[in-house]
């Protein structure tokens, strides 16, 4: 088993050799995270989508110069932040003084970054989705619940979770997957 970076690096090398589908995988892996990051700089959702697209295209064009000296996501994150800031400047809006840390890009709160006022409808939809997901987790068998909780809330690696749960890494991987599948089934009726 490998960790993420070697697989990211393999994908980058494939892109450099002309395999555009490898870039699709990188995009699928990080697009959600990047839209989350961009949405912390830019309010309008259409603009978030446009800036995310621009960031990925810039990344593709520059990927031949990516040497793997940093993690691929760190490199992509920097491109996304710069693209967001340039966008704000081009719209005569002031970018925030401080950057979002690479480790908290999608997560955590950061008061220095622009905040949004959500519509009540959006808030309701998100609350409903949140309730469904938490309820799905509550309904999980104990071993799946522990595995997915350690992964999503504590951010532990599969190996660490295997140590905590005293089971093989393969079992952890399977439990986390089964937990996600169960949650997915529960929210599948929910309008995306």
């Amino acid at each position, binding site marked *: *088993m*490998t*960790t*993420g*970076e*070697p*697989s990211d690096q*393999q994908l980058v090398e494939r*892109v*450099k*050799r*002309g*395999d*555009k*589908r*490898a870039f*699709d*995988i990188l*995009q*699928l*892996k990080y*697009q*959600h995270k990047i*839209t*989350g990051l961009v*949405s*912390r700089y830019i309010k309008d*959702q259409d603009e*978030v*989508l446009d800036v995310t*697209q621009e960031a*990925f*295209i810039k990344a593709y*064009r520059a990927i*031949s110069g990516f040497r793997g000296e940093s993690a691929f996501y760190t490199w992509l994150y920097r491109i996304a932040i710069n693209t967001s800031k340039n966008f704000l400047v081009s719209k005569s809006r002031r970018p925030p003084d401080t950057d979002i840390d690479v480790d908290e890009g*999608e*997560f955590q*709160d950061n008061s220095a970054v622009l*905040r*949004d006022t*959500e519509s009540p409808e*959006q*808030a309701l*939809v*998100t*609350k409903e*989705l*949140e309730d469904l*997901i938490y309820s799905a987790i509550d309904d999980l068998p104990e071993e799946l619940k522990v595995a997915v909780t350690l992964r*999503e*809330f504590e951010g532990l*690696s*599969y190996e660490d979770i295997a140590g905590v749960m005293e089971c093989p890494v393969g079992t952890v*991987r399977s439990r*986390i*997957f089964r937990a*996600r599948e169960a949650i*997915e089934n529960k*929210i599948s009726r929910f309008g*995306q």
Partner: protein
Amino acid sequence: MSGKLKESVSALIDDEASEIEVHRLLRNLDSEQDLKKTFFIYQQIRSVLRNPSDKVQRIPGVDQQMKLFQRISDAIDDEETFTIDSPTHRNWLKPVAGLAVAATLLMTVGIVFNNETGPLPDSISTNTPTIAQNVDTQPVEPEPELRELDEEKQKLLREYLNKHDRMTRLKGNTHLVNYPPGQ
């Protein structure tokens, strides 16, 4: 879509996918339409669990992510495809080409000096235009032995090598072997 593929997606978003799994995903990416959606669903679940709800509201939902993915993928398809001749790949060719030039130069210098040490063998000096025929039809001549050069020829060789060294230094990025002066 097979559970195995979805399990690979689950592992990949956790940075725990093996090389084989990544290859399998690549192979099935276009044929399994739900595969892409699975990426976004799993990440939406993560996003809801890890973010305060006011942040989640701003992140586009699964359907929007899917549309955005397609938009970007189409835009990337219109971009130039990297090939082995792309600038990044040409970089490694420079030192290799440089070494090849250096090797050719050394061989040429060696032949010149070996030839200057004595008359050419009759078979070559008299049949110069038909060297290829000689190679095919005549027995292979034994390799000329390395001989110590007299002082004048050593001086000439040093000049060649020094000149080569100067050229190498002038073109510092070619990564040619630098010869110590006087050898």
